[in-house]
């Protein structure tokens, strides 16, 4: 029983990070119908910026804020410079561009920061809380991870639901032509959407790095997990991304906790889940694409 609780807690914490990363993919997919394969490299870049600051003696929090702001700028630049020319063109073009960007940014990280493994600190401890006589797998750091993701999601909900700029962003995503005719600066809204997505992706990258080693390609598996979580949720739905991330986190944690040599099977399990979703329910759990066509 205790083992089950621990495996579940680990799964939920990891799942939260997958949710955040999936959310970043969904934000971009919703507005520009592009799967941003470069999201992982972009997040890795900002994590390395944070690491450089920490190594230079800055606090974790300063590094966090700077990294998120650089994510904002990076996302905006990527949309404006690299994505804008292929927007509205054949979908494959945009996919190839993001794949190219993925490789290019990863190479740039290796050039600037080196490709050695470096340990990334956490702001809080990695020792599980004491419950009765036992230590559980919930650590102060996992509470921070969960809280950070929840707060970010709440802020996004407030932005999209209750602010004018959020409404303008949704109108731009779902009705580009109508939005332009009604005076919404759609181009700016798309840039802002990419910038916000990059912030959320960067947050996921920073959170997953905590207490681990980072290297230019350390986000590669998170891309796979985030993508599976997003597809599981229907690619179109922020709620779907969150639920998908949590389901995937739990599933992978059970695989690695209960299957013999399971930790080696985690990546395979994620891809198996992806295949099952695509075979059984290709629209995902929360897809709204039927509403779009109506």
């Amino acid at each position: 029983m205790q083992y089950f609780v621990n495996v579940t807690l680990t799964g939920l914490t990891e799942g939260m990070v997958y949710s955040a990363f999936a959310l970043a993919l969904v934000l971009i997919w919703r507005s520009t119908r592009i799967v941003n394969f470069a999201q992982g490299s972009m997040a890795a870049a900002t994590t390395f910026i944070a690491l450089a600051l920490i190594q230079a003696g800055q606090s974790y929090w300063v590094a966090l804020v700077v990294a998120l702001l650089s994510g904002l700028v990076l996302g905006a630049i990527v949309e404006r410079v690299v994505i804008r020319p292929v927007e509205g063109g054949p979908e494959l073009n945009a996919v190839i561009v993001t794949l190219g960007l993925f490789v290019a940014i990863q190479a740039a990280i290796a050039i600037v920061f080196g490709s050695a493994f470096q340990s990334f600190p956490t702001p809080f401890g990695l020792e599980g809380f004491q419950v009765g006589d036992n230590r559980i797998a919930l650590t102060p750091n996992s509470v921070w991870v969960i809280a950070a993701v929840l707060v970010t999601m709440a802020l996004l909900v407030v932005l999209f639901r209750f602010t004018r700029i959020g409404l303008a962003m949704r109108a731009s995503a779902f009705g580009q032509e109508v939005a332009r005719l009604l005076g919404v600066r759609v181009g700016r809204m798309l840039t802002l959407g990419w910038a916000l997505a990059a912030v959320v992706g960067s947050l996921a990258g920073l959170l997953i790095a905590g207490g681990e080693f980072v290297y230019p390609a350390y986000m590669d598996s998170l891309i796979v997990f985030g993508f599976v979580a997003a597809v599981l949720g229907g690619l179109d739905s922020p709620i779907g991304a969150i639920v998908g991330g949590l389901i995937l986190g739990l599933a992978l944690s059970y695989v690695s906790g209960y299957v013999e040599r399971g930790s080696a099977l985690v990546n395979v399990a994620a891809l198996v889940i992806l295949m099952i979703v695509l075979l059984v329910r290709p629209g995902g759990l929360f897809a709204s694409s039927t509403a779009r066509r109506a």
Partner: protein
Amino acid sequence: MADTRAHGSTAVATDGGTAAGPALLEVEDLTSSYGAVRALDGVSLRADTGRITAVLGANGAGKTTLLRTVSGLVRSSSGRVVLDGEDITSASVESMVGRGMAHVPEGRGVIAELTVHENLRVGALFRGKVEKSEYDRIYDLFPRIAERRDQPAHVLSGGERQMLVIGRALLAQPRILLLDEPSLGLAPRIVAQIFGLLRRLVDDEGLSVLLVEQNARSALSVADVGVVLNLGRVVVTDSARTLMADEDLRHAYLGF
């Protein structure tokens, strides 16, 4: 808008489509193409304040391209579009609504993912903060969408969608409303209701409408002036009443 009432009613001329004085919207010798196809071939027309100007013609006559060129969605290859004395031929699409022109595109343009009320709010976004009473006024005009204000817009029927997009355009407080085939796919009763409402807005509040319609009979019954397009050229411009009475013209170009 009520203060423009007097202005609106004085501007309504009873004779023909060749009213003197400056037009609210003036299209001069406009030419534009979709790819290799020349959709507009030197079109000139005017829309006056406090009037409904109906552009009629068969499918492919260039009606939709005309509206899309006027609002900048399609760039003209020659000619001018002048709104209230200002040349807006190369102005950005996004700036049109701020200049007083609201274009409701073909196919209604409801944003299905947003709620009814959010759709309305998009119409007022560029104006900043808008009084609640303005929304109430739209809901009074269209009680059927008021009942559904918090539902996602994709649940609306065709007629309700048309009401929503007209209401949304009105929230932009336009001087001229560009409507593309509002009757498309709607029951005659709903069409009559919507056209009746447009007439009221034009007569009572000085709104001006440039209406593009394939349904010529309904359009002429509500319009002041008719412009008949054929293969990208203006065939005739005259008062709606005269066009309605011209049997040969109706048979040749308007299909009734």
